[in-house]
């Protein structure tokens, strides 16, 4: 996983880094209707026995959320096709030319990305005086590991019954969920139990997005996650708020 930190997945018709799956699905090279996303998520979670890399897990969850969203679009009744006058009016030869240019352009940027990677590799070995302590530091996880958090997440995911296909058209965004979580925490000075964030019968997409929102809030240090005793309930607190 050195080139990128995208975890490898194996699904019908595809095996490789999950972000590549997203790219292929988006390009129509993989038919998501054939792909069992629930098993993919479960297989990933089952694979998380050892160290959980928060960064990688976030990457996976993002990819999973993107796939779920794409798949739900495929499964929903088709909307009347949006008019695409620009493309419709193109001559076939123009289209081919346009495509060629696009591929060429993409190749150029891939090379640029390689050059940047080389610069990054050098600069990563150069250190300056760090800013005063506190701007960076431990994630605010008190008395528990990221594994515990993931285990709890998994329990909720297993509890959630509704299949992904029942995505409300409006969709939920991570930003909405973050706001909702902060609002609930603000109203709960003694913190919230982790499980309370999830309705028992939430659609999986809602569970995933809620969890992403939670990770995001932990990363931004907007909330603290604490477990007072081993295997005890996980509680969430608004950061800085007193109990």
């Amino acid at each position, binding site marked *: 996983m050195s080139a990128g930190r995208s975890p490898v997945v194996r699904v019908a018709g595809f095996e490789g880094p999950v972000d590549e799956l*997203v790219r292929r699905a988006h390009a129509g090279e993989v038919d998501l209707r054939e792909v069992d996303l629930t098993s993919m998520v479960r297989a990933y979670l089952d694979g998380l026995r050892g160290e959980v890399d928060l960064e990688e897990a976030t990457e996976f969850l993002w*990819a999973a959320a993107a796939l779920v969203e794409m798949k739900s679009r495929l499964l929903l009744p088709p909307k009347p096709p949006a008019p695409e006058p620009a493309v419709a009016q193109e001559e076939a030869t123009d289209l081919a030319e346009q495509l060629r240019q*696009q591929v060429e352009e993409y190749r150029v*940027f891939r*090379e*640029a990305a390689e050059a940047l*990677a080389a*610069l990054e590799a*050098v600069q990563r070995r150069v250190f*300056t005086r760090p800013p005063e302590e506190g701007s960076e530091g431990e994630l605010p996880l008190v008395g528990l590991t990221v594994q515990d958090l993931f285990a709890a997440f998994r329990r909720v995911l297993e509890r959630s019954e509704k299949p992904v296909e029942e995505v409300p058209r409006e969709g939920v965004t991570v930003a909405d969920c973050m706001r909702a979580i902060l609002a609930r925490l603000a109203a709960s000075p003694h913190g919230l139990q982790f499980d309370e964030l999830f309705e028992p019968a939430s659609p999986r997409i809602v569970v995933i997005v809620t969890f992403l929102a939670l990770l995001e809030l932990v990363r931004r240090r907007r909330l603290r996650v604490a477990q007072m005793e081993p295997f005890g309930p996980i509680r969430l607190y608004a950061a800085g708020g007193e109990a």
Partner: protein
Amino acid sequence: MTEEDRARTLRCALECLLLASGGPVPLPKLAQALQCSEEETEALLAQLEKEYEGRGLMLQPVAGGWQLCTRPEYADYVTRLVAAQPEPLSRATLETLAVVAYRQPVTRAEVEAVRGARSDHHLRKLLERNLIREVGRKPGPGSPILYGTTEVFLRHFGLRDLSDLPPLEGRRVQDMLRTPTGKEDER
């Protein structure tokens, strides 16, 4: 005070300025703090750079300024003491960043048109690491957000400024930055 004493004092002061500020300091600010001309400050920087040869620290011109930093050859010692630098960017994220860097200001739709893939996740990552930022909104329907690179971006890659970006296919970066693309607002 002899001329050499004066230069020596100023070199010492320069060293202090660079240590105290931590990040890159633009030449005019150094000159102002030293109460010297910018030319003289540049000469002092060159002298100091020479003095630092064979030492652990070095001067680096980056992000429009000068900074005091460690030489890459001692990185192994340093990572034994302090946390390693943030993770290198994934390939897909680097690709997204390259499009933003060479095409800025650019919308998400434009980035996605080049990459042929959804890029919101990568843009978010880049925003989070302060490598890119919102620089405005594009006039037109929906007025989409325009992205550009930040000073953190320059520092992350050890670049002086945007013209220091590796040339793309022999095209000079300045030309690319100025060329408006014909495919704007494609979605």
